[in-house]
């Protein structure tokens, strides 16, 4: 395996002996995850079509999609990008900075949510929902659009 040492910085050749089996297996996993995501997506669509959309259920489904997406990301990074077979330290230098995203996301969305509250209450002075909000009715089954 080491007949093609890439550069002298490398002391042993990384292992690439694994056949294409892992690749195809990952492909199948990714496909299955995507199909599940689609099913959930359609489920959300159908909930929205119902008379009284159940907000908690939708939220739960959306949470599931997020987790599935992270799983997909894990397989792409770990198998397709071979990060899984790198040296542990290297993996950590990639993963740890990505942890910054946690606070990045929380803080941004949190503030976004609070802008909504400010808008809806005119800075806490009164209920100030825009007209469109009051008429939040069920979307129609066929669309009012023609190409």
């Amino acid at each position, binding site marked *: 395996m080491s007949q093609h040492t890439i*550069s*002298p*910085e490398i002391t042993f050749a990384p292992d690439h002996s694994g056949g294409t089996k892992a690749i195809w297996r990952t492909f199948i996993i990714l496909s299955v995850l995507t199909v599940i995501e689609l099913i959930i997506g359609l489920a959300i669509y159908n909930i929205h079509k119902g008379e009284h959309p159940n907000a908690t259920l939708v939220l739960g489904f959306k949470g599931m999609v997020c987790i599935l997406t992270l799983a997909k990301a894990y397989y792409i990074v770990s198998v397709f990008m071979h990060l899984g077979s790198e040296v542990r330290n290297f993996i950590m230098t990639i993963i740890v*900075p990505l942890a*910054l995203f946690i*606070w*990045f996301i929380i*803080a*941004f969305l*949190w*503030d*976004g*949510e*609070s*802008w909504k509250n*400010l808008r809806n209450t005119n800075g806490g002075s009164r209920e100030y929902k825009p007209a469109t909000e009051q008429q939040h009715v069920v979307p129609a089954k066929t669309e009012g659009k023609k190409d």
Partner: protein
Amino acid sequence: MSSVASTHDVVSHGHSDAHHEHHHHETFISKYVFSMDHKMIAKQFLITGIIWAIIGGFFSVIFRLQLGYPESTFPWLEDILGHWAKGGKLHPEFYYALVTMHGTVLVFFVLTAGLSGTFANFLIPLQIGARDMASPMLNMLSYWFFFLASIIMVSSLFVQTGPASGGWTIYPPLSALGDASLGSKIGMDLWLVAMAMFIVSSLLGGLNYITTILNMRTKGMSMTRMPLTIWALFFTAVLGVLSFPVLLSGAILLLFDRNLGTSFFLSDIIVAGKILPNEGGSAILFQHLFWFLGHPEVYIILLPAMGMASEILSVNSRKPIFGYMAMVGSMFAITILAFLVWAHHMFVTGLNPFLGSVFVLLTLLIAVPSAIKVFNWLTTLWKGNIRFTPGMLFAIGFVSLFISGGLTGIFLGNSALDIHLHDTYFVIAHFHIVMGVASFFGMFAGIYHWYPKMFGTYLNNTLAYIHFWVTIIGAYLIFWPMHYEGLAGMPRRYYDYSNWESFKMFGGLNEFISLVAMIVFAVQLLFVFNFFYSIFKGRKVTTKNPWEANTLEWTTPIRPGHGNWPGEIPEVHRWAYDYAKDGKDFIPQDVPVGDDESKHH
């Protein structure tokens, strides 16, 4: 021994063939212009940075004239500024353009590119024992993207409607609406494009610095043996690589809002009597994006100065730096925290109070590693045998300014106090001292210390001492009284205070500050003169290691060629701070550990 050395010779230089080629046929272009030698690129960054510093400093002199003498006219201003200073009176629009460009130029072009661009390029390969950067090609591109950014930014000064004038933070909607301000017309587009180029430059540089430090260290140079300068530059590069992209996103979105009619940052706007169709965006979102970069940017500016000050303090105290691991650890903590605290710049934007309180906690946490660093520097001086070289003086000045400016950060990080002090002169005083002047002091310390290595000559000492003393006294005279203006609630970025009952009593003080600012600026010109004069006429360096320092750069020839070491790269056997150990004044890093040596590190 020799076999080891020869393998790592190749190791530390993944492209050794390229380097040998370069030695043989170097033309003027390949040696001085499109050079791939990290030392030449460092000098290019430095000289471009110095030119920018003169420009940025000169801007401040002009707008300080307006602030100091709001009633007077200066006919010569019309000669240089044309319609922006009709009758010698600065136009408010151009006043704001100058303020904006002063900030942009000094923060990005001088203290980011000019500071870490110079010293990361110069010191990383030399101090870790590498022949060059990991990718000299990208390194060269990094400079030329910076150059391109400079050209675009300069060109924005000459457009009819003037350069960007919305403050260096370019908050939309002001910066997004051409109708809201003249500077938000074409000048703003040029600003954004220039910054995009600049971000590419800093990215190319940063990736190179990180990879070089990780992959190219010479044999024996473990991470914990690296000089603190390298650690600082490493963290700086990490900050840059992870935070600049977020500014890039913000800049791209802003460009779209300006030119394609999108609604990223715009909603519910009536400008110049027109109702804009944009809806759903948020102006504050840009501030989040901006400060996600903007806060790490503060440390991008400050960390290299910290690193160099640590190194220079240790060398000239003839003592090891106190608490090496604590220093590294606190820089690491600062790096992490820098990413978590951005919204403390936004306490008065209607930020969610609970979110704000988390930001207060995280922000004030930064004070702990900063305090550790200060105490460690003080202890490094304690019981030393101190030589006051110009570099050392600037390093001491850096510590003094860092203390002064850092302590006022405790006021501003505490949200309840920030409400009162936000956007007043208190803020100006705070960040000018802690990240403006202090970083400049770090930069000057670095220049004075490594100038002999860069050019093979010394700077003139007398001029250097004059430079130091006028600058530190001037800096305190300028910025110390500003705290009082801030405590009186005097807002920043005002063209004229004379119509305000609450602020007009500071007219005399403003005049005094302007006067000192001009003197300090003149003395910087003295330094610039010293810098260029000494390249050609300075006293020649006659010894390899003039400061008797331990680090590897002083083991190269006085004027190292491309490749740094003519023979093998020295192997490292110890950390960089064996000063005063076992009765020896200093023990360079490439000296093997003797049997009788006491154990430490």
